[in-house]
């Protein structure tokens, strides 16, 4: 089974040289720590920065320079600042090559829920609805099951939807899944996790074809 860092590390393998990438809050943020050698990507932070750098040293902390997760950050050479309308212009017009988001639920049609639990938790959608409505390529980073052991890869969402038919790939603690019209196509297993375990933990339509390789980490 993968821990959060490993989920991020696996997703980082999807990055291609020259990509503009938006990383959501939580596990997606960790993807920046595993950008493969020789691959150069530009990170977009939807609060108004293209070319986000690493966290600052303590003496370089600047309250006016944060990412969308409200963490203090730095800029890299070639970065730019802009207002929120320009930021979402980039997103809606499809200029961002890859978006990585967390999710509470995903279904086998690629619908995603990640902004609200009616009556219990309301944090809001932030930029997620704009991102999922327009991004060309969305990968979801998530735990496969909830604390009660119930699948979060579902036939139908139980929570309010964030966007329809937008998720292309899910990397969970159990495996890598491509979402096609046939459902969740299992592509890789997490180390030590059997196909049977994945079948037992997946409520949505699951497609298992041939030998499913175990993920390899460097």
């Amino acid at each position, binding site marked *: 089974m993968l821990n959060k860092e490993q989920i991020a590390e696996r997703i980082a393998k999807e990055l291609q040289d020259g990509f503009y990438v938006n990383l959501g809050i939580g596990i997606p943020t960790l993807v920046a720590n595993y950008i493969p050698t020789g691959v150069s990507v530009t990170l977009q*932070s*939807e*609060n*108004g*920065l293209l070319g986000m750098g*690493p*966290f*600052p*040293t*303590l003496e370089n*902390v*600047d*309250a*006016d*320079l*944060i*990412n*969308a*997760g*409200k*963490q*203090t*950050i730095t*800029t890299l050479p070639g970065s730019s*600042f*802009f*207002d*929120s*309308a320009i*930021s*979402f212009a980039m*997103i*809606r017009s499809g200029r961002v090559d890859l978006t990585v988001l967390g999710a509470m639920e995903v279904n086998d049609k690629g619908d995603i829920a990640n*902004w*609200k639990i009616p*009556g*219990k*938790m*309301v*944090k*809001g*959608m*932030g*930029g*997620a*609805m*704009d991102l999922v*409505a*327009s991004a060309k390529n969305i990968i979801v980073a998530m735990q496969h099951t909830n604390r009660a052991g119930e699948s979060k890869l579902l036939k139908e969402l139980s929570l*309010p*939807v*964030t*966007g*329809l038919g937008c998720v292309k790939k899910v990397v969970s603690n159990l495996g890598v899944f491509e979402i096609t019209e046939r459902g969740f196509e299992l592509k890789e297993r997490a180390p030590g996790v059997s196909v049977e375990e994945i079948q037992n933990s997946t409520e949505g339509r699951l497609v298992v074809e041939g030998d499913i390789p175990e993920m390899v980490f460097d």
Partner: protein
Amino acid sequence: MNKVVENANEAIKGISDGMTVMLGGFGLCGIPENSINALVKSGLKNLTCISNNAGVDDFGIGLMLQGKQVKKMISSYVGENAEFERQLLSGELEVELLPQGTLAERCRAAGAGIPAFFTPAGFGTEVAEGKEVREFNGKHYIMEQAFDSDFAIVKAWKGDTDGNLIFKATSRNFNPLMAMAGKITIAEVEELVEPGELDPNFIHTPGIFVNRIFKGVNYEKRIEQTTTI
């Protein structure tokens, strides 16, 4: 025409109970601290506030929520505020949550003379309820309308007495958009200079959009998450 006012108390004159007020900032970054403190002291009630976030419990708009001054909040993300969540779940506070890009564009549209626009964000979700849906080139979009706001309050890094504004780093966020969108726009700035001292090449908000400007004091600039290497 003199746009300069002495302080935040002067700047917020004319805001009255029940009005709609836009407040710039993303999280606590780039929020108009002086004006928010003046609004808290004013005791104004039943305000509708348009702001991406609602501050934290003891800072920013969170202070206005503690004082039960806000009737309705229009935001995109409110996850950092327990009092907000409590008032929302108990029904004391009316809340309209919008996709962040939609929130930004509804500000921009208001300041650009555009009454409405179509966006794909929120199609098929609760956000689309009651809104017109149209199909363009095979994709679905929902109609969103420009905001109608009595006042907009923004925070800039530098400004001149004609109201020209320059923002710093990611504290720009919603500020230039809201500056365009208020019937009356108030700008508080860290540095207030004479016309001619700011290079016209680097003005973010032209002074035409700003009605009142003042030099803020004692900026706390609280950081929500200090992350370092």
